[in-house]
């Protein structure tokens, strides 16, 4: 390798290293997914860390070996061995089929366990009462309905800290995805069905919520704040919402559901009964029944989730949506 070329390589390497270091220093520790504020996000982070460690068992040696081999067996290094015919070794091949298999088996076991554990429709075990929020994706804003309190909001939610929240999700728009990274992973919101997602905030704070699946022109404006507060503040907030001059009626919903570029956060002091169910069943004719996909009744147990999932293939599962 010529001197000039080597300096080029070195320059490139140092440039990359520099940029990487800058990136990591530029705010490590502030990334939402890596800073969970709720039990679901925390478990998901554990799982991410386990995965990274398991992968690193292979990845790190591979990167090192790559460098060493490429360096040592460069043609200009006349000291190195040269065995042009050597192309097979049962032992070596067994090793590198074997190790990944073992790691994948371990990872698979972990994943299967966590998949059941973190099934989004599974309620979070807690002594405290669950809060239910019904979520509707509209073009291009989120409507949140608090059925128990009889209020609704647009593009903002307030939840009590340390209490499980059950989100029921649907869409009156193209398929969307509902994501609050600091509290836990996302789930799709789809027309004609109701999905369930259970999350909980462990400490008060304002968390970032966003739409994650593209729904058209002004999709970028579908972000919202999640305010986790103490129980007392939560009750105050409910009271405040009830004072709001705006009310959600079937008519004002009709107006709201029309595409609009950007909506500021808004509170509604009342909601009509069963509006969420009407949105879910909007496209269904008589005889078709409401399909609860990936969700079910509030007191759902692990067992009933897997009962549904034994449909084994998601196509079949989705077909039942037509309620035949």
């Amino acid at each position, binding site marked *: 390798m010529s001197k000039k070329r080597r300096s080029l390589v070195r320059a490139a390497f140092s440039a990359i290293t520099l940029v990487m270091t800058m990136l990591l220093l530029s705010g490590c520790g502030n990334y939402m*997914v890596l800073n969970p504020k709720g039990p679901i996000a925390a478990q998901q982070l554990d799982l991410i860390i386990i995965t990274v460690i398991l992968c690193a068992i292979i990845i790190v040696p591979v990167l090192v070996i790559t460098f060493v081999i490429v360096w040592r067996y460069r043609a200009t290094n006349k000291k190195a061995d040269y065995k042009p015919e050597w*192309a097979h070794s049962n032992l070596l091949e067994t090793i590198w*089929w074997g190790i990944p298999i073992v790691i994948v088996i371990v*990872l698979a076991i972990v994943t299967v366990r966590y998949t059941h*554990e973190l099934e989004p429709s599974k309620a979070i075990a807690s002594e405290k009462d669950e809060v239910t929020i019904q979520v509707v994706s509209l073009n291009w804003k989120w409507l949140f309905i608090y059925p128990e309190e009889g209020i609704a909001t647009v593009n903002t939610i307030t939840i009590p800290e340390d209490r499980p929240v059950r989100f029921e999700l649907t869409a009156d728009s193209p398929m969307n*995805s509902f994501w609050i990274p600091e509290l836990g992973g996302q789930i799709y919101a789809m027309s004609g069905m109701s999905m369930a997602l259970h999350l909980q905030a462990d400490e008060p704070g304002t968390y*970032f919520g*966003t739409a994650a699946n593209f729904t058209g022109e002004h999709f970028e404006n579908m972000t919202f704040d999640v305010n986790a507060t103490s129980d007392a503040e939560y009750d105050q907030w409910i009271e405040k919402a009830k004072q709001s001059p705006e009310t959600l009626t079937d008519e004002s919903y009709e107006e709201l559901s029309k595409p609009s570029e950007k909506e500021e956060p808004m509170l509604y002091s009342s909601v009509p009964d069963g509006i969420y169910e009407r949105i879910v069943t909007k496209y269904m004719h008589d005889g078709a029944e409401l399909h609860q996909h990936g969700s079910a009744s509030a007191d759902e147990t692990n067992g009933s989730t897997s009962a*549904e999932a034994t449909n084994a293939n998601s*196509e079949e599962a989705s077909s039942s949506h037509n309620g035949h």
Partner: protein
Amino acid sequence: MLEKIKEFASEFFVTGDPLIYGADVSIVLATLGIVFVLTYFKKWGWLWKDWLTTVDHKKIGIMYILAAIVMLFRGGVDAVMMRTQLAFPDLNFLEADHYNQIFTTHGVVMIFFMAMPFMFGLFNIVVPLQIGARDVAFPFLNSLSFWLFAAGAMLFNLSFVIGGSPDAGWLSYPPLSGTQFNPGVGQNFYIWGIQISGIGSLASGINFIVTILKMRAPGMTMMKMPMFTWSVFAASTTIIFAFPILTITMLLLFMDRFFGAHFFTLDGGGNPMMYINLIWMWGHPEVYIVVLPAFGVFSETVATFARKRLFGYASMVFAMVIISIISFFTWAHHFFTMGSGANVNAFFAVTTMIIAIPTGVKIFNWLFTMYKGRITFPTPMMWTIAFIPAFVVGGMTGVMLSVAPADFQFHNSYFLIAHFHQVLIGGVVFGYFAGLYYWWPKMFGFKLNEYLGKWAFWLWNIGFYICFMPQYLVGLDGMTRRISVFSDPDWQGLNIASTIGAYIMGLAFVFQVAQIVYSMFRKEMDTTGDIWDARTLEFSIASPAPEYNFAVIPQVHSRDEWWEEKERRARGEKPWDLGKIEPIHMPKNSAIGPIMGAFWFIAGFGLVFHWLWMAIPGFIGIFACMYARSFSAHKAEYYIPVEEVERTEAKLRGSV
């Protein structure tokens, strides 16, 4: 009347954006320029006879690759525009709808009109030469495949200036892509651009399977095939199982949009989730279709430039076959968040992880091919080595994504974007570049300039990491894909870094174009036909290969037949007994390919605008072409006499 024309024109042509007017002007100027040059130098006849109507696999391959490079430019410009828009918070460089069109066309162009033709270009150029054949099994069908691709690509790209581009994402999930939410014609361009070129891909898949199964040189058993040919076989097999699903999916979406059917609509009992399942049942195998040939390229380059046999040949073949099979059982990992239940998610999570095993094995085999080798570092090898860390890290993030509950936190975020760009650029693009540099001398008879090539290489790699590493982080910070504006100042630093990286890659592309242009004028000729001291049959003949490829088909004894032959010659043993030259049977050029492509284009264009008066003649034209071919096929061949072959060979070998 004038008013009506004006109104029609403003609907028909895309208007309103200065960027688009600029593009319009440059398209018109470029077209005029090409027409002028062709007319001035009286090259129309040459273009038609030597290129457009050719059925020679080598020329078709070159046309594919030329198209792929043009499309890489188009998709790259899209990418750079997106990154410009996302460089700073609340920027207003692109309007939301324009941004949405650009990310859609970026994805579609890069996969369907860049990666696929690049791949078929390499298939075409290399496979017949590598297996000692004179052409593919069905040379006319091969030309037709190319013209279907060309018709589809032109139709899709036309949406940029006529009618408006699709804007529902590269896989266009309904109901967003249905008429309810997307009444314009952009989505119709999407359907027909993909449908027409997809039929071409399907035909190519069939063609290469038959070529590989039936046309290998005597003595070349399946387990003596070069690894690139194996990868083509695996990819083609995957194509014939996956692409029919795409064809039907596009057909059903078309039925919904054109006839008002209810497959994927919200009303009428339709089921949009069905589309998502179907499109990924094609879409997941598709990513393996494009990456397997890249694996094939690496297997060739790594053995050649380490000057050592490929390590673990049988394992490599087995791994590839396993990958193509399992790729059909992982599709649902693209939508773990659909709520299919824990068991479904667990199943697809595990199948996805399993794919990592054979892929990892291949990496080890490449590494141990280099172990105790004599590695030299010309550009094809540099791309090969750069591939390993890029793909290993991309593979790791892939495994992270496969863990279903963790995927809930990665899905649709920039983490995912970074992952698939890392494997698609680090795997597919690096692989195809390695292949292009490696076989370029075989295609054209001269080598690409190494100095400019190394500049391009380093810029690509540096830009690549600067662009995509920050995207992992910004994804972990909650930034989702497909947003046209971001406001969060926390994302600023990472986004600007990513944009800078994109510009560096753009610069790298400029270097590559400069490299090609420079090398055309300052040719480093490949006089031996074996410029890399390589191992497989394609390097045993002259560069560029004569139209009949092999004057006499060699008898194959081992995997690296050409390497062994050189060894035998070096030891002073008897060289190949090639036997005597016989008249060579060749297919004639055919105009039906390009004409049929044109009719497909007309039919597609008519259906895009619901103009049956245009679509029906288009389809009649297609059937007329099929009839014409059926009636004339038996006359479409000729023999090259022995004397001519001998003359050509003498000229190529530089001796009489």
